[in-house]
């Protein structure tokens, strides 16, 4: 036990004396949270639009005012003829033009219908879609309120409610994925590299000849990373809570237990990688390509799995991060208990056991 303690202390020296490791451990999580929270967002805020009002009556002015005061749009210019529409788009900063047809109020009063044309700059398809939806929603809202006073024979109102994330905040989407990514990065990448480093330096040989058992060596090497990963998980949750206002609906204890399970899984992956190669570069490359990329792209983190072709969906369902992200979303956003995530938990557990067994097998073959 005493020799084990010395081992862990030594490992902390390695970590705290290496700037690269420190950077990955402590700067990355905060940086990524802030990046994902602020930069990569699906929200619309102050989008620059132009209004082409051919009618200029009371109702079009009211609608324009409502759009301007919504907080999503900023009316930067009013245009007067058709040719200008293309011109403002080509200038680049206008994302949408709202066109009211001639005699708008008159037609609405007489026929009960009038046309608004929403033209968006779809060179950025996602934003274009969002802007169009937001504008439609504002106009519909306006119509509903206007008609409330008038009595209509029959009316069907459709209403959408966004559950669990009523404001559709982007950060709600990104926190679970960022957690998965950081934990994979810290546990799998850093541990595989640190173990392979001992092999490269030849110190692993000396350790194996010493009275330390192989499992003691491995546990001694990964224990500090478990501790630091938990620190990371905590800091991510604190950041998301206090900076982005993301609540934890479910049990914090359950959330941390699931994090710990995912940390174990990542460690077993890291150890498995380290048994497969003798070079730090290769270990880093495998971790990046085989673990990091799928965690970002093929896990439902950023892109929804349902929209992928079937063969990519299969990869997603093999990817353990997918299940972790489901678990975190359920606990954090929906506040569900263990019963709703036991299947995913079991899968993560199974993966952990699998990779530990594979590592032991590979290790034994090496010693032979």
């Amino acid at each position, binding site marked *: 036990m*005493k020799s084990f303690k010395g*081992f862990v202390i*030594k490992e902390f020296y390695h970590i705290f004396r290496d700037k690269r490791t420190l950077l990955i451990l402590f700067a990355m999580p905060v940086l990524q949270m802030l990046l994902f929270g602020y930069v990569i967002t699906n929200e619309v805020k102050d989008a620059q639009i132009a209004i082409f009002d051919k009618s200029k009556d009371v109702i079009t002015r009211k609608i324009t005012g409502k759009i301007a005061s919504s907080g999503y749009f900023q009316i930067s210019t009013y245009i007067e003829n058709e040719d200008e529409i293309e011109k403002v788009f080509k200038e680049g900063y206008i994302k949408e033009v709202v066109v009211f047809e001639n005699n708008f109020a008159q037609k609405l009063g007489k026929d009960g219908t009038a046309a608004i044309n929403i033209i968006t700059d779809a060179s950025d398809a996602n934003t274009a879609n969002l802007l169009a939806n937001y504008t439609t929603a504002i106009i519909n809202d306006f119509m509903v309120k206007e008609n409330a006073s008038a009595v209509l024979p029959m009316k069907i109102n459709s209403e959408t409610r966004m559950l669990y994330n009523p404001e559709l905040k982007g950060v709600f989407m990104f926190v679970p994925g960022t957690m998965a990514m950081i934990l994979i990065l810290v546990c799998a990448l850093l541990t595989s590299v640190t173990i392979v480093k001992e092999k490269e330096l030849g*110190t692993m040989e000396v350790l194996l000849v010493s009275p330390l058992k192989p499992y003691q060596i491995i546990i001694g090497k990964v224990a500090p990373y478990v501790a630091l990963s938990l620190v990371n998980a905590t800091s991510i949750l604190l950041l998301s809570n206090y900076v982005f206002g993301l609540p934890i609906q479910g049990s914090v204890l359950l959330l941390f237990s699931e994090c710990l399970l995912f940390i174990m899984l990542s460690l077993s992956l890291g150890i498995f990688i380290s048994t497969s190669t003798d070079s730090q570069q290769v270990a880093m490359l495998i971790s990046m390509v085989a673990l990091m990329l799928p965690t970002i792209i093929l896990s439902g983190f950023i892109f929804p799995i349902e929209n992928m072709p079937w063969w990519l969906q299969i990869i997603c369902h093999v990817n353990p991060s997918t299940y972790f992200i489901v678990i975190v979303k359920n606990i954090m956003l929906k506040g569900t208990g263990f019963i709703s995530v036991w299947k995913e938990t079991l899968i993560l557990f199974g993966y952990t056991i699998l990779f530990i067994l594979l590592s032991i097998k590979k290790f034994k073959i090496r010693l032979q």
Partner: protein
Amino acid sequence: MNTKEKVIIVKDLVKDFGSFRANDHLTFDVYKGEVFGFLGANGAGKTTAMKILCGLSKPTSGEASIAGYNVYTQSNQIKKNIGYMSQKFSLYEDLTVLENISFYAGIYGLSFKEIKIKSKQLLEKLEFESDANKLIADIPLGWRQKLAFSIAIVHNPSIVFLDEPTGGVDPITRRQFWKMIYGAANEGVTVFVTTHYMDEAEYCDRVSIMVDGKIVALDTPDNLKKSNNASSMNDVFLELARKKDNVN
């Protein structure tokens, strides 16, 4: 300080990897306080044999006992009673001299107090006191080598295994290093050393030469030179390798 007390006893040791026989009926003894040279070309089976003697792998058949412990059943005791130094010196470059000593002494179960005393002795002996807090990365290769050797025997093992300990070091440092080896042998530590510098083989009390998994010669350097009509160990080695080729 050669006595006839045997600390390594190897009899008919065989190690197979599938159909490939890496060690073919090795038989030899090593005496306490002896400097025993274990020579052979790359791929001759030196490393395999050394791994077995260090308790890292098990032989296919045959017997071997190290410091009185059986390699099949007592690899834990063996590990506690041997020291090991590899070709790469195996020190942590981002730890200081003192931290390296404490770490390796610690994994051999020395107590905090013992570590303190040992480190002090060791630093005095090497005249390293002023550099105790320097990182290994900042000290020259020759010093690292001496430090690595001192660390390999910090827990007073009865045998120390040196795997090509002088690779990449200049001749003067090599000579100094051999002085340290003799010093340890005089204190009763058995030194089991592999090398491919044939001039170093002359420093050993006895040498064994391995060719293709078999020990083809085992004697003092002088006797080997006489019996092979050679003027240096290098010639002995070439002669034996040639003979072996002719037999095949």
